Every structure is written in structure tokens, then in C-alpha cells.
């Protein structure tokens, strides 16, 4: 059993509106799973079902191989997108309360909070009220509360919103460290650069259906277009360009290099290997730059959503 969380054809409707339609996902233990999709696609509904906030109409969720039970809330840490804290409660008191709701004893909660407060250097906030903190500061508290009970499964919905780059990096490193310590992470965001950085596996939900699923590298392979970024130097650039255009499909390219004689993206037909292109080019000009174009998560997202 290598999957921590499995969703089997989960469906959920709100009145006439179908929020999820037969969605299945498998989240491998110790991985970071990116749950992507446009606004209103159904991501939050799926996350709420995993958190047992909403009950699915059909389908089942397995955690560690067995169906979700009420006691499983201890195994999950959830940082919702719409999040806040009691404004008039003191930071420490509130954190202890929320930890107790997750099943920690008061003393355990205190000890662990002390560790985290020292780690993030916020020890002096203990007796402040939430309303005295900035948004980013409150977010830090929410992050700590989410991970405090050391859940097997962490669910972060837009965890970096409201953080400056320094704190965003800090939180990102904490997430990676938690993953290394054995936690499994479901990560929902619209920031594709963090998906690239963090996710091992992605699933894309669009209009209540799962439209894409797989390891990030596999998905990228699936979306690659056999296109190569090429930079050449030649005495006669016009002639060389003309020759290449006669042979291949060519698109303009922008990348940084020292000379800028010829820059182009060359798309190869399905049966042609990059070696063929290379040998074709070596006879025509000096090759300074030759890179395969890898689709970004952003491109994959936009392309998938547009095509569906």
C-alpha cells in the first residue's frame, strides 16, 4: 500500500449544480500532490470531502487503505484558503485551543508550540491578540496550527497568499522539511511556479471533472511538442535561416545568449530525432545553444483548460 489517500469516483452535487463528477485521485505516501484547477472547478469541494466537512453523494475516500472515519481528523492538517482566527483571542491561548480540538493535550500543545514559536522566531507574540498582528503574521500562526499535531496528511490551499517572498520561502522550506520527515502533502494553488518547484504529482480538475493526472515529469513529457530552442552563428544568417525554414517548422524564440545571430524554435516532425536536427545544423552553422523546450506547468494548465 503505497498510497496514503485514495479517492474513488467521488461525486457531489449541490442542488442542480454538480460540483464533482466521478473524480478519482491517488496520493502517494511522502509525495507532494498538486491539486490544480481554475476557480470554481471543484477543488475546494474535494478538499472539504477529504476533511469530512462535506459528505460525498457517492464514491469513497480511503486513508491508509481504510475508509475515512471521524477519528481521522487527527491525521489530517488542513489550511483552508478562506482562513482566519478569533480576532479577540490571544495567540497562545487560541493555538492551544485549536490544537486541543485536534486531540492534543494542553501540555503537548504548549511544548510543541514553544518549539515552533522559537523556530519561526515569534515567541513574543504569545500574549498578543490576533487583531494586533498583520495578515502575514496571522498566516504564520495558522500554518503552525495546521502542522502542530503532526498529521500524516497535510492539505494546503493557497498557503503562500499573504506572505512576502522571505516568509513564503520560509514556509516553502518548512513544507519540504515536513515532507522529508514523512508527511504527505496535498497542495492546491494557482501559482504555477510553486507547482513546478514543489509538486511531484499533479491532478487538474476542470468543470467538476478530472482532466489531467500524473507525475509532473510524465505530464510534461506528455505535453512536450518536440520543439528545440536553437542559437546559431553564421557568416550568412539569412541564407542559413532560409535553409532551415525550408526543412522544418520554425517559430521565433527569445532567450539570452552572447551572440544573437540566429535564434529560433524548431519543431520536429514526430519521426525525427534531435540528432537528425543537430547533424543537419552542424553542416550549416556554428551551434551555440541547443535545448529542448519543456512545457511549463503554466502552459499545461492553460492548454488543458482551453481544450476542455
Amino acid at each position, binding site marked *: 500500500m503505497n498510497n496514503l489517500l485514495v479517492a474513488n469516483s467521488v461525486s457531489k452535487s449541490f442542488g442542480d449544480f454538480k460540483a464533482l463528477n466521478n473524480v478519482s485521485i491517488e496520493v502517494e505516501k511522502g509525495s507532494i500532490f498538486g491539486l490544480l484547477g481554475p476557480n470554481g472547478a471543484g477543488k475546494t469541494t474535494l478538499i472539504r470531502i477529504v*476533511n469530512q*466537512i462535506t459528505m460525498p453523494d457517492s464514491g469513497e475516500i480511503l486513508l491508509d487503505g481504510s475508509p475515512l472515519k471521524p477519528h481521522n481528523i487527527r491525521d489530517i492538517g488542513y489550511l483552508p484558503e478562506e*482562513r482566519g482566527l*478569533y480576532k479577540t483571542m490571544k495567540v497562545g491561548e487560541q493555538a492551544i*485551543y*485549536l490544537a486541543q*480540538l485536534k486531540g492534543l493535550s494542553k501540555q503537548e500543545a504548549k511544548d510543541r508550540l514553544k518549539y515552533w514559536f522559537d523556530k519561526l522566531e515569534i515567541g513574543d507574540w504569545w500574549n498578543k491578540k490576533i487583531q494586533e498582528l498583520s495578515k502575514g503574521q496571522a498566516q504564520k500562526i495558522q500554518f503552525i496550527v495546521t502542522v502542530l499535531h503532526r498529521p500524516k496528511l497535510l492539505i494546503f490551499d493557497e498557503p503562500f497568499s499573504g506572505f512576502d517572498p522571505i516568509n513564503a520561502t520560509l514556509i516553502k522550506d518548512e513544507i519540504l522539511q515536513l515532507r522529508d520527515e514523512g508527511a504527505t502533502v496535498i497542495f492546491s494553488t494557482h501559482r504555477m511556479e510553486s507547482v513546478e518547484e514543489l509538486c511531484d504529482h499533479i491532478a487538474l480538475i476542470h468543470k467538476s471533472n478530472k482532466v489531467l493526472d500524473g507525475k509532473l515529469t510524465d505530464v510534461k513529457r506528455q505535453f512536450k511538442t518536440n520543439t528545440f530552442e536553437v542559437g546559431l552563428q553564421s557568416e550568412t544568417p539569412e541564407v542559413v535561416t532560409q535553409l532551415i525554414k525550408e526543412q522544418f517548422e520554425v517559430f521565433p524564440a527569445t532567450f539570452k545568449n552572447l551572440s544573437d545571430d540566429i535564434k529560433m524554435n524548431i519543431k520536429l516532425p514526430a519521426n525525427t530525432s534531435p540528432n537528425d536536427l543537430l547533424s543537419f545544423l552542424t553542416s550549416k552553422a556554428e551551434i551555440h545553444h541547443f535545448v529542448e523546450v519543456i512545457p511549463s506547468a503554466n502552459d499545461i494548465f492553460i492548454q488543458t483548460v482551453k481544450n476542455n
Partner: protein
Amino acid sequence: MNHLPLIIKREYLNKVRNKSFIVMTFLSPMIMIALIAVVAYLSQMNNDTKRTISILDETGLVGDSFESSEYTTYTIINNMPIEGAKELVKAKNDFGLLYIKKSSDTLKLVETINFYSDESPSLSIISGMERKIEKRLSDVKLQNEGVDIAQILAAKTRVNIAQETFEGEKTSKVDSYLKLAFGGAAGYLLFMFIIIYGNMIMRSVIEEKTSRIIEIIISSVKPIQLMMGKIIGTSLAGVTQFIIWIILGGVLLYVVSAIFGIDVMQMQTPQKVLINQAMANSDAQNMAQELITGFLNLPILNLCVAFLFFFIGGYLLYSSLYAAIGAAVDNETDTQQFMMPIIMPLVLAVYVGVFTVIEDPHGTVSTVFSFIPFTSPVVMLMRIPFGVPIWQQLLSFALLVCTFVFTVWFAAKIYRVGILMYGKKPTYKELFKWLKY
């Protein structure tokens, strides 16, 4: 996992530590007592006004039946035409002039009595004078008929019907007033409690929504647990506040009346007047005794038990609805449209209680309303001091419990869906749809 005690504790501490709650707890009784003191003081001042009333009695029959008292002095004017008397009274700056015109016939006399004054006199002044004149004129008429007044006085009989139920329980008019007071107080207390703390629950639910903490909480706790925790925690805070109010109010009342020497208990409140009239025939000692026996005659045990049960039942019934409203909306201004259906039955219950229970505690209207779950807590509490058969109480309570279970289920449904809905104000139709989510 049962988090209920944890949630109750947080809600309770959060309410009790809240600054405005503390201020209200200690300020309200002071304001109330200050108001009572001011009213008492003012009404005493009012009574303190000394006035002089002149009497021009052309018949010479009634003049001497007016005896001056502490606050009112009567002066008799003799042998003066009415116009002159008016001028004189005005000049003396007296309060008014009572004029009894000469009439040949004693029977006609009653139609020719006038009172002249700058300001129109209060009802009590006029009726006081009327009573004196009436008595004197009746005596005069009786004498004219040759009846001896002394004989009449001797023959005067006082009757006080002793009331007793078939079971042998003694009751009296005093009892009735006591029952009314107890029932009314219980019903009204419940009404106030629901309005004050129901609103508090509602605000606390809205606060959780607007601060966006709700989703974090319900990923650990079942919504119904959170709702019940809120209701119970807030109610305990409410009970605390009520107890402090009662203690503080009692102490302050005692202190204030000691300091200012105002005997607040002697104020002529309407209830007092009622009781005084009922007591008109019995002397003070008798009255105290009757009060005590009346109190002992109340079904005290029944009253206490029923108060506890109906209070809790009624309160939970309404507060779960308040919680549902809080969950359905985003801010307090949106609550108006949903408040009406809650307030209406409550107000109705109080009106039914005040008007029909006094009239006839076991009449059809009060009986029916003491069974309808939304009005039964208030109306039944008002009826119980008058003795309600146990089967009626049990039936009414059973109905209340059934409805309570239903409303809590209903409220929990709305609550569960509503707390995660932001942005738009739901219609009743949408609320109904939420039940099926």
C-alpha cells in the same frame, strides 16, 4: 471525539472576558437602580407639593367634612359671591376653589358642584373630593329620611369570602396576585433571556464566519457540536450575568434606599395599587399573614421543576434558530428578514400570557397556547402557579421536546451549509434547498 466541553469552555470564557460583557454586567443594574431611585425621588417630590384648596359652600352641608391633611389644606370661605371668591383664591395663589351652589333640593345639589383652578387637577384630587362629598350627602339624605347614622355604622358588615378548592387547598385574592406575579415573572424572564442571549449566539456565529475561522474549526469538530457548544457556553455566560444582576441589583437597591431614605418598596406601582385595593378590607398584620400563606400555597416544587424544564426547553428551541440565522447570513444587517418569524411567536406568547392568563388561566385560549411549542414555555410558565394538571404539563413538555429536536436538526442542517456560504444573502427558498445538501 467529544470536544463539546472544550468548546463550551472557550465560548463561556470568551463571553465572560469580553469587555462590553463585563461593563454591561456591572453597569446595567446600576443604571436600573439609578432609574428606580430617580423615579421614586421624583414621585415623592410630586407628593410633597403642598396645596391649599378653598371651599365656598353655600349650602353649609359639606364644608366641614373636609379635614386638612399634611399636603392639602382646606380653607372655608363664607358669605361671598362666587365671582369674589374666585378673585380671592386667585389672589391668594391657592390651588383651586371648590364651589357648592345653593340649591333648594338636596337631590339636585349633586349637579351643581364645580371646581375652579389654573391647572386641571389630578384624578386623585378630584375623586378624593368627590368621595367626601358623596359620603356626606348620603348621610344627609339618610338623616332626612329619619335614619340614625350610628345604627347604620353598627350594622355595617365586612365580608371576606374564604376561597377553598374541593381538595381543601385554601386560596385567596392575595394568592391570585402572587400567582400572577410569579407566573408573569417567570414568563417574562424567559422572554428576555431568549431575546438577549439568542442574539448573542447569533452574533457569535456571524463573528466566526466573518473572521473566517469557521473552516479551520469544522475540520476538527462536527458543526452540530460547535453549534451546541456555542449555545450552551453562551447560555452559561447568560446565567452568570443574570445571577450577578440579581445579586448586585438587590444589594444596590438596599444601599440606595438606605442612603437616600427612599423607601422604594412603598412606591405606588400599579401592582401595589391592585394589591392595596384587594387588601382594603384587611389590616396590615392580616395582609402579611395572607402573603405568607399565599406563598406557601403556591405549588412551589412544581413551579421550580417546571421552570427549569420549560426554561431550558424553550430557550434551546429558540437559540438553535438564532444560531441557524447567524449561519445563514454574512453580517448582522442581513438578519432582519429572518428575525421576524422568531420574534412574532415570542411576542404573541407574552401577550397571550399577560391578557388571557390573567383573565382565565384555564380558559381555551391560554390552554391551547400553553401546548403550542413556540408559545408554550412562556404561557405554561405563567399558568403553572394557578395549578395545571400534571398530564397537561407533561404533554406540553413532550411536544416542546419533539419540536426542539426538530428545530435543532433543522438548525444544524442550515448551520452546516450556511457557515461555508459567503457573499450572498440567502432566500427562504435557498434555505430550504440547503436542507437537502
